């Protein structure tokens, strides 16, 4: 089963997947003109900041099987493409009841007008379509192509899980000194700085001495 796998520890919050996604779902497919289109094309992947600065998670539809959204959709607007392994919305049949959003385990469904939908004023369910057009051409999804740090990867699920397993193995063995450590991680300090910012806010909020200036 081919899917987009997420390595959240690698996400550095550049938002390039969001821009690539919105562009892919535009009429012009051109970043320079996509943002001028009406209705405005929308990203279907959302990079949300984590609990401390310098962390983030790119959230998108996981194309569940069975898909709760498809199960509850009263108009049958949501269906699965078995061949490509993606869950798709027929925007013309969507009645914006938001039941799909209610049951989505990942809050991955949004509602905006769409060029493919019933009209420029009518919001319909928008979510990741797995870049079906690209998949049919043998290309990876746009978000994966845009990601230059391996936070989003596309391939056979078990292969992707295995890749993560191998990285974990190397890290565990380095930590237990059973294998030499790799080169210094340039991101470690960046991540640590985010944690320090949160700590500093906590410390500053704890009055330790008279700051003066009170009336």
């Amino acid at each position, binding site marked *: 089963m081919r899917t987009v796998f997420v390595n959240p520890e690698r996400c*550095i919050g550049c938002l390039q997947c969001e821009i690539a996604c919105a562009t892919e779902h535009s009429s012009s497919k051109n970043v320079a003109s996509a943002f001028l289109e009406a209705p405005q094309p929308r990203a279907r992947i959302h990079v949300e900041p984590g609990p401390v600065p310098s962390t983030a998670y790119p959230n998108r539809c996981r194309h569940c099987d069975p898909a709760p959204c498809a199960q509850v959709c009263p108009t049958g607007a949501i269906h699965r493409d078995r061949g490509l392994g993606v869950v798709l919305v027929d925007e013309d049949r969507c009645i914006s009841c938001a039941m799909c959003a209610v049951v989505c385990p990942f809050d991955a469904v949004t509602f905006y007008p769409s060029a493919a939908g019933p009209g420029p004023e009518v919001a319909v369910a928008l979510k990741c379509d797995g870049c079906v057009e690209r998949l049919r051409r043998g290309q990876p999804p746009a978000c994966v192509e845009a990601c230059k740090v391996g936070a989003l990867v596309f391939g056979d699920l078990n292969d992707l899980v295995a890749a993560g397993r191998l990285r974990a193995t190397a890290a565990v063995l380095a930590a237990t000194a059973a294998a030499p450590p790799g080169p210094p991680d340039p991101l470690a300090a960046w991540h640590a700085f985010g944690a320090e910012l949160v700590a500093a*806010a906590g410390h500053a909020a704890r009055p330790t001495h008279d*700051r003066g*200036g009170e009336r």
Partner: protein
Amino acid sequence: MSVSDGRRAVQLSINRDAQEMIDLARAEGIETVWDRLDAQQPQCGFCALGVSCRNCAMGPCRVDPFGEGPTKGVCGAGADVIVARNLGRGIAAGASAHSDHGRDILEVFASTARGETTGYRIADEGKLRRLAAELGVDGDQRPAGDVAADVADVLFDDFGSRKDGVSFAGRAPAARRARWQELGITPRGIDRENVEMLHRTHMGVDNDHVSLLLHALRTGLSDGWGGSMIATELSDVLFGTPSPVLSEVNLGVLRHDQVNVALHGHNPVLSDVIVAAAEDPELVDLARSYGASGINLVGLCCTGNELLMRRGVPMAGNHLMQELAIVTGALEAMVVDYQCIMPSVTDVAACYHTKIISTSDKARFPGATHLPFDPRRGAEIGREIIRAAVEAYPDRNPDRVHIPVAPVRWMGGFSVEAILGALGGSPEPLVSAIASGAIRGAVAVVGCNNPKLPQDYAHVELTRQLIEHDVLVVVTGCAAVANGKAGQMLPESASMAGTGLRGVCEALGIPPVLHMGSCVDNSRVLVLAGALADFLGVDIDQLPLAGAAPEWYSEKAVSIGAYVVASGVTTVLGVQPPIFGSPRVVDLLAGGLDGVVGARFAVEPDPSRAAALIRRHIEEKRRALGLPFEDPDSIAVTAPAAPVG
């Protein structure tokens, strides 16, 4: 939900005035810098790590810091070159900002020398003649105007390409100058180094990160010993050399019953004539006719520091207070020149009766009233600006006025001349206090505010811990204002210091934290360090000194960091610069530089840990000088605090 949603005001600033105004802004739906920081989360990691490049149209490019994606831009530049180029360009921007400020002062100085200005004069003729002697200009028996014109000529040449070294670089100790010469980083001309930095960072020019970083240091030096020093020295000549002065600080300096005018930005050249205009009887009468009891000038940021240093003008706040000062509803006008003035001030002002008055043709603000500065009409423009502010007073809505706290007293005015004056004319008393160990060393705590950090927390906490351990602290810029608000900058603040430093401060009647001025006045710190080194016959890097920029945000701060380190003073930054995508650049700046210029950078956001690192560094320097020292390893560096949920 973004990271900082729900951060309470007490987590955003340690100051009650800021906290109350943040809550008020939130209640009124007025967007501030903290809201915009939230909206930017997550911020781009490529850019935070310095590995994105927009220098050419084959790009934009970014390289994968994990090393699995692209490791080179289209041109072939890897992380080392991209990071070094970006850092170099940032330093050039910061150095250019300071130096163009210096040039603006120089131009007014030259025009004043020729008698073409109104509202300006040579205020410190003694300093003019001392500068003339230093610059090889005949200063004796000639009218001040003629001397000033020749001094201006010499300094104009410092901006160009005809010299082997900028004039004031000659003030550095001989050993330091020799080291610069050997490394090829003597600043030759101010504009030249900046232009060369832009040239070198064009695609396909300097492709060696070491060479790029060395030129970045030279570019910084052209600021510290060039543009900034010219700004400081000529401002002293035109407006007076600062001497100790008492004043007040925080938003409590705004008055309920007066026309409040905030002077914000960096250049003292116009604000000085505004001070005169605010005392104009006709304008004071006009204010009274509208029911105000007078005209109250306050400072913000470094224009405020310039005015505090020379005129004792009260200070409303530092960088992160600029929007909040408007939220008091008590500000009739904010007069802005340039640098660090958020484009948002006009948006916040639009929610109130406050007029934003822009004064520099280089710095325009849509929505502001533009009254461009012209030194030939200085006095007249000063009056026009004050008149505009007074005319806004009837529009003030008293129901929206909220001045949060009572002001805190503080002391400014410690130019090098004033410090040496307090010491009795020679660095000897300070040097012997350092030699005996009563004072362990001295640290310059400088730089900005950054909304990523709780406002002023690191400035105040670091400074407090240093003075408690007998380290004399000198401050400039936003760091100075932070310490002022915390009540750490009065002669009686000596009681907060350790026994040794307290004794020295009490004997001299000075605070343990000395205000040396605006951010261009970091040049005063260089002059003082050079004077101490010369007195001892050593180089600056041998002295028990350090620098700290705990809450920096600006490209100017990066330039300051570059020239301070290149001058031999190790500097601790509280906010990560965008260089961590290149471990080689980090290794060089945080380690290798020590063997080259005798100083290096460190990054430590936690002020307690930063204080310990600095004290260890100072004790190491003391040991090397053969002075009584504490074992550096005995100074505990506490573990980083656990994140608070």
